[in-house]
């Protein structure tokens, strides 16, 4: 009996081992782009190397075009530092996986891309998960855009390196504007924008709308956040309490509502995917969005090369601000990393050198917050897709961006705001009521953290 049990145990164990082995060695392609250890020497170099020489391997996670840029940077970095391996993982920008990696404290990539607005949330929810990068940032702190830097600062320490900022502009379809007889330079205010939109809708028989956004809010409320920033609005009042029904927020919502009522908008239910779809099908004539979207346009709507122009955002009223910031990201280093030196060196290379920022702009259309790079040639060369220099255009649009504080638990606040967007645009709920409801929901969620 006992012997049989033992046997049984052995078989189960053997099966388990077989299982693990098979799961481990399976498959070859995909998922993790650009790994392949660089150079000839792996492993050995660490013993022989001097202190400065880097070795080992790290994993870096980023999304979309940023991940593409990181892959390019990884290649360049590995060439300069033989014996190192930098693997880039493509992940989604909603952190679907990062959340559980952090909670489980397993498989957290060594270097992680985060939206700049979320860094504080992550720092608060996972206080020990992030490495203090002060020694990396401090010597060059004046070189960073002060707004970008403020978002990574906690108690005078820096927990991430600012990557890009997201100055916004109006991407517009030159060919459609021309056909409808609309001159983009005549659009000074959002009222002009709505009028132009009506013309375009009419000229295309209703096929092409002016603007697309997610009416339901569940996939994204980017447009709202952009307009709010343009107005200089905040998410909190002076005492730090959530305030989503500020005058600026109401004004932003009213504008969107006005556009929707004028019939110049289209719903992008799953905003990111549907925007690409609608763009491909000529259903939107303009995309008021951040500089980093230029990269997505280029890669996802490649066949529309030459059809897109970049103009400044319309103002809310004559002479009002035409600048806004939306998004932007940072690179943080996990405190669990086995290879802190390498991780830091890679971050420095990617974000704080001309070479890295050249790739950032080239591959990812990511507009660095590292000011010395603005003087690089790369920021002045004309882009083929848009026919203008993306760097120069957007550097003019980032001179007067208003700072905004995202607070310690922005995810909670943003969830409430997204619900409010849905209530306003799909349930016809009164703007003020929807926003004040959202305020109390958000405050409650924050208090419960």
């Amino acid at each position, binding site marked *: 009996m006992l012997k049989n049990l033992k046997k049984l145990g052995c078989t189960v164990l053997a099966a388990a081992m077989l*299982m693990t082995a098979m799961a481990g060695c*399976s*498959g070859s392609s*995909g998922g993790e782009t650009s790994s392949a250890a660089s150079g000839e020497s792996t492993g050995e170099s660490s013993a022989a190397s001097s202190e400065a020489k880097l070795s080992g391997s790290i994993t870096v996670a980023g*999304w979309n075009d940023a991940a593409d840029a990181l892959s390019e940077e990884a290649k360049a970095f590995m060439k300069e530092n033989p014996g190192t391996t930098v693997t880039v993982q493509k992940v989604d920008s*909603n952190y679907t996986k990062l959340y*559980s990696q952090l909670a489980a404290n397993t498989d957290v990539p060594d270097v992680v891309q985060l939206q700049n607005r979320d860094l504080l949330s992550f720092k608060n929810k996972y206080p020990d998960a992030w490495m203090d990068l002060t020694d990396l940032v401090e010597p060059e702190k004046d070189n960073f855009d002060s707004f970008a830097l403020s978002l990574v600062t906690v108690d005078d320490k820096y927990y991430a390196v600012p990557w890009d900022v997201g100055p916004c502009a109006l991407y517009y379809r030159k060919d459609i504007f021309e056909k409808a007889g609309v001159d983009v330079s005549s659009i000074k205010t959002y009222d002009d924008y709505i009028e132009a939109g009506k013309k375009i809708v009419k000229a295309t028989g209703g096929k092409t709308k002016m603007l697309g956004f997610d009416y339901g809010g569940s996939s994204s409320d980017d447009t709202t956040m952009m307009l709010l920033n343009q107005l200089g609005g905040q998410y909190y009042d002076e005492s730090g309490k959530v305030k989503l029904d500020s005058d600026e927020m109401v004004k932003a919502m009213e504008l969107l509502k006005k556009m929707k009522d004028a019939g110049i908008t289209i719903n992008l239910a799953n905003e990111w995917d549907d925007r690409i779809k609608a763009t491909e099908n000529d259903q939107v004539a303009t995309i008021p969005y951040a500089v980093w979207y230029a990269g997505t346009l280029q890669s*996802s709507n490649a066949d529309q090369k030459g059809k897109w122009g970049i103009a400044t955002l319309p103002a809310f009223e004559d002479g009002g601000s035409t600048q806004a910031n939306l998004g932007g990201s940072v690179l943080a280093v996990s405190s669990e990393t086995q290879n802190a030196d390498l991780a830091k060196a890679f971050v420095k290379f990617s974000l704080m050198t001309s070479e890295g920022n050249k790739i950032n702009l080239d591959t990812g259309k990511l507009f660095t917050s590292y000011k010395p790079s603005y003087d690089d040639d790369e920021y002045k060369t004309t882009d083929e897709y848009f026919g203008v220099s993306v760097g120069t255009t957007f550097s003019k649009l980032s001179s007067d961006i208003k700072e905004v504080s995202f607070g310690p638990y922005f995810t909670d606040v943003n969830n409430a705001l997204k619900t409010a967007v849905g209530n306003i645009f799909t349930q016809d709920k009164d703007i003020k009521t929807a926003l004040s409801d959202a305020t109390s929901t958000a405050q409650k969620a924050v208090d419960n953290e």
Partner: protein
Amino acid sequence: MKRTGTKIVIYIILIIVSLISLFPFVWTFIAATHSNAQIFNLDYTFIPTNYFTQNLRQLRESVPIGSNLLNSVLITAVFTALTLVLDSMAGYGFAKYKFKGNKTLFFVCLITMMIPPQVTMVPLYIQMTKMKWVNSPWAIILPSLASMFGVFLMRQSFEQFPNDLIDSARIDGAGEVRTFFRIVVPTMKPAFASLGILAFVQQWGNYMWPLIVLNKPKSYTLPLSLAMLVAPGNVINYGAIMVGAVITLLPVLIFFLIFQKNFIRGMLSGAVKG
């Protein structure tokens, strides 16, 4: 005359139902041969084109689809096999042995069937992280095996098995375990088939728990890998995603088409007897 009329109506309804049932499958296969732009196109056509290989290449570039397929196959196979073994044994134990507390134990276990699985979602996750089982196939297999559903089903079936047969086997000196595997199991084919099918289909499409407990692209199962491809912030390529859907669909479909008679028969005879 009236009979022919009824007949025609029944046929028409069944044909419509069949078309509705089949349409999404057909569409998936056609879309897998289309480029992303063609799928997005408003004037969509149902004529297959030749983008399949390109889509497949792009899919392989973006996810380790080979590993994902292997993970899915392994997890589903091991799970189904273990379900059949453990649940049939437990079901038999509950059905055919009178021991103290049998009814109570069974009833208490049965109550867990009424507790929504989400109750265990968070603690199981914490358990998995502590056991360092995140990313492990066992993190999917073992918790799914704890469901009482199969035991319940098997107990129902075994109760109908005549006690005389078991007793006569005992008199022949066959021993309890031997009796079960040699005498009882071979007559329970339909019950095994239906439980096997249900376990297979359920685990193959399992999404929520893998989403929580698998973190590395290489350890994803197929459905999880597909779902990650449509997550926002990715460059969406529906052509490639549809190829992924075909890869997910094909094994089940082939399996089903080969064994479809037994599938349905198993479902019909074994599944439910009140």
